[in-house]
């Protein structure tokens, strides 16, 4: 079943594909781990300005029991995903948002390799009975249409295969916008992080809406 989700709406259709029953989100200590790279870590902005922290604030206002953990690590590629998930086992997350692979794309890593690594991370989460959400990533158009489309396809393909919700593109509305990015043109600034957090908040609000 295809679950390619329109990127602008972050539709809640994904809810229907959640494979693993989640703990109740309202319950105290519901933890969302965002596993990613420098985009997640918030390279170049204060920790409190990175989107995981802002999302944490928004979700807490909505449901005080939710906690977002920033699992970003600058420079990391998808190859480190599995090992890092093992580390976060200590944090006992209830839901993992996998935002892995942007450095793979920027370094021209073979698409199959990235797919394999993200898939391994996804399977590990399922083994641990953690709810999983995939975040789609893209490479800039200068890498060529062929590579860019093959890379972008990794995420919807895996989401469909494992029936997990998909955030179609993590940097939706932010990538390529000079006002929302730092001088390097790659990392979001405070406003860019706020936009991502807002997008994700809408997504999670829908995703977790029917949970008591």
């Amino acid at each position: 079943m295809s679950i390619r989700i329109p990127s602008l709406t972050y539709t809640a259709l994904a809810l229907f594909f959640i494979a693993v029953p989640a703990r109740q989100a309202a319950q105290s200590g519901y933890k969302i781990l965002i596993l990613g790279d420098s985009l997640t870590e918030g390279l170049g902005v204060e920790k409190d300005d990175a989107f995981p922290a802002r999302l944490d604030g928004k979700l807490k206002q909505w449901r005080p029991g939710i906690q977002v953990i920033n699992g970003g690590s600058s420079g990391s590629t998808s190859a480190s995903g599995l090992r890092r998930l093992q580390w976060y086992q200590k944090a006992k997350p209830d839901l993992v948002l996998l935002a892995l692979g942007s450095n793979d794309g920027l370094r021209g890593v073979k698409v199959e390799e990235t797919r394999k690594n993200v898939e391994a991370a996804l399977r590990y989460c399922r083994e641990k009975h953690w709810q999983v959400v995939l975040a789609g990533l893209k490479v800039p158009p200068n890498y060529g249409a062929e590579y860019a489309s093959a890379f972008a396809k990794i995420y919807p393909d895996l989401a469909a295969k494992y029936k997990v919700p998909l955030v179609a593109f993590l940097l939706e509305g932010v990538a390529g916008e000079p006002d929302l990015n730092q001088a390097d043109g790659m990392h979001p600034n405070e406003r860019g992080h706020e936009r991502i957090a807002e997008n994700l908040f809408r997504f999670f609000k829908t995703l977790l809406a029917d949970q008591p």
Partner: protein
Amino acid sequence: MPLFLRLLKHKRGAWISFVSIYALGLSVFLVVNGLARNFREEIRVKSKELLEADLRVQVRRPFTGAEEEALAKWIPASAKKAEVWGFLSMLRATGITGITGIRRTASGATPAKDPGVGVPGSGGSAGASRLVQVKAISPGYPLVGAFAFAGAGKGAWSGRMEDFRSGEILVPRELLAALKLSVGDSVSLGAKNFVIRDEYTAKPGGSFDFWEMGSRVYIPLADMPATGLEQKGSRIFRYRFFMLPPGTDPDAVRDGLDDALSDPEVDVSAYTDSGSDLGRSFNMVTAFLKMLSLSAFLLSAVGAAFFFRHHLVGERKTVAVLATLGASRKRIVGIYVAQNLFLSSLAALLGMALARVWSIGLPLLIHALYRIDIPSSLPWATFAVGLALAILTSLLFGFTGFAGLGRIPPATLIKPLESAPLGVLPRIALFLAQGAFFFALAMADSRSWLLSALSVGAMGGAFLLLGALGWAAFRVLWLLRSRLGYAVRIVLGSIRWGREKSLLAFAALGFVAFTSCLVPQLEDLILDEISVPKGRVIPQLFLFDIQEEQLPGLQALIKSLGRSLDLPSPMVRARLEKVNGEPFKRDEDEDGKGKGNGSVTQDGKAAGRHPGAEAGRRRGRATLEARNRQQFRNRGFNLSYRDTLSDAETLVAGKWWQGRAAEGAIPEVSMEKDYAKRLRLKLGDVLVFDVQGVEVEGRITSLRQVRWASFQPNFFVLFQPGALDDAPKSFLGTIKQIPPDEAEAVQNRVSEAFPNVTILNLKDVIGKTVETLGKLSWLVRFLSGFALLIGLAILWLVVDALVSENQRTILLLRALGEPRARLARLFLAHYAGFCLLAGVTGYLLSLAAAWIIDLVVWQVPWIPNPLIFLVCAGASLAVGLLCSLYAAFRGAGQPLRGLLSLTRP
């Protein structure tokens, strides 16, 4: 013959010593300054090559209309221009087109069965793709530097950039090998196919940015639209290169553009900004050479002044005779000023001739010995400065003597002058004037108040301290004279008679020892900073993002290729959360340098977004720097851990840990000292890091000095093993210098087996840096040794003059029946004591000076090198004993009749 020359006729020894010492010192000053200037010029040329122009403007988007206008306003119309777009992209092998009928493999050989014409898909591994760094170049590129091509001159391809046409691409050999392609084959970038025109073997420029991973390929800028790679969201850098017309100041144009281009994303660089990789090393070497040349000159000036003053003291009776015969004081002073001018001019001419000879000979010698080329020209301006400097300095140093001449009474003929002809206050005033003169000289040379004050202060202070110590030592011996033997008393009396000369000689000897010991200590420090330690092979390949589970496999693979993965270092990403229990935040002050190199506010409140953005000399640059600082400030830390210090590290405070962190105890942390200073962290501080969601504590127990030019993985923060073992980490590693073919094979095999591992070949970048640092090292070594030889020569001449001075005492003692052997022992003890006391004092003062210079000027820890201590102390002892032996045997061996021809001055 004028009287001043006739009076010199019988003082051959004195004036030869004066001229030779002064000429030697002056020549060292001229040649060291000249070579340093030549080297600076070479660095300047290299900087242009690195930047590829006089001026470069870059931005990661198209230039706006306002920016184009600013460029048109500030860049002279006659400037040469070129444009380049730079970006990363995937290059795909598509097949053979055979445009030239010549198809060559990466090694340059023509394949046996070369179809020569297009057979799509048959070339190499058609369909294979690889990340490349694309440079789309405009006509006229490169402005500085040049390409070299493997196939230039073969067939229709001339190798000139004018013949590089639309639809063609230039690639490096490793790319041909990796994709199994040949010259003449076809590749695609985006929607456009390109034919490989040639394999380049050298390319312009030499700078490196981390984003520039992948092989660099060149395409015509005009082909960019056809590739379709420029779209919204594309990361494409636009570079504009400019060669300014002669006489245009690139810094002024850069500053003007900085002001005009308000967007901080637009970066303007002049070639004077580039080469900063070598900045610290080069600045240290330049400062050292300046100190060296100034020391050599001051040394020779002190030596020459010693001889001239010695000569003037010896001339007191002559002065008295002249005064008795009716010569006016003005005329008498005029005679000796003329002598000084004559001798200093002679020394200057000789020194300049020597400098010229050395400026030609030294580079030849250095080339013959070390295969290093150093430019040999010496500008004429250097000679003019040398002549003026020599005469002025000599007059200034001789002034005390000249002023005293007018106060010598005719009665000196029958009663020797017991007190110095000039009072204490005028002498202090003259000493200060001499100091001011050298300070001005140092300022003109270094343009640094601190450096000038330290150089002159250290030397002047050393001279004063030596004089005071010599005087104190003599006073103690003089008070104890009744308990000493008569021979010692006679020696003391002899010193007392000529106490001015003795004191001067003591100070001169000590000063020679001071300078001679200071130079190797500073040289040692500099070489430690800039040279590659013996036995260390510089790495060439750098591997990143090695996952823990990949490490054994990667090591095995590299071993199977006959190489080894060196220094595999774990890297753990973390953020500093708390310092001593308080939330950590850091801000900067308005000049962008931070409050005392950085400040920590632990109140948990942000101190503003871009505090440096509103300040600064130029808004654009300040804002960009502020952004960069913000990025630096807020980024996390790359932590690592290991058992021992690397050979690029030196512990400067605290202690290194023993073994692994104990269970339950706070693990120990070692910080790089400058980084700790910037963050205002100190020994004993307890840090809390957020290691990807998990808090890890650590206490700073040591500070390290890190030699960043060691070309090996270095970290600001190191943890005691045990604390981070389980943390998510990746590894870095290096592979040493290997031949190009092997490097390509290793790169390809690693990329195939471990696609996530990024492998960078930094051969070109490191090679150029190492070559320049090597030159600097040898320059420092050679010129230090050269200056020390001059110091030893001066030392010997001073001792020789002292011996001559005491001949009368020696002969008098012999006439009184003192046996020669006992006399020899007596004078051996006398001179040995004299030389050793002066030498050891000079050495101790040099330790203090080295300590101050290291800490204040270079801001590096001062660690005395035991070998230098032994060599300096040993050399002081050996030279002192040799001089003493020479003095004792020469004095004791004189025939008694010599007493008749000697008179006390």
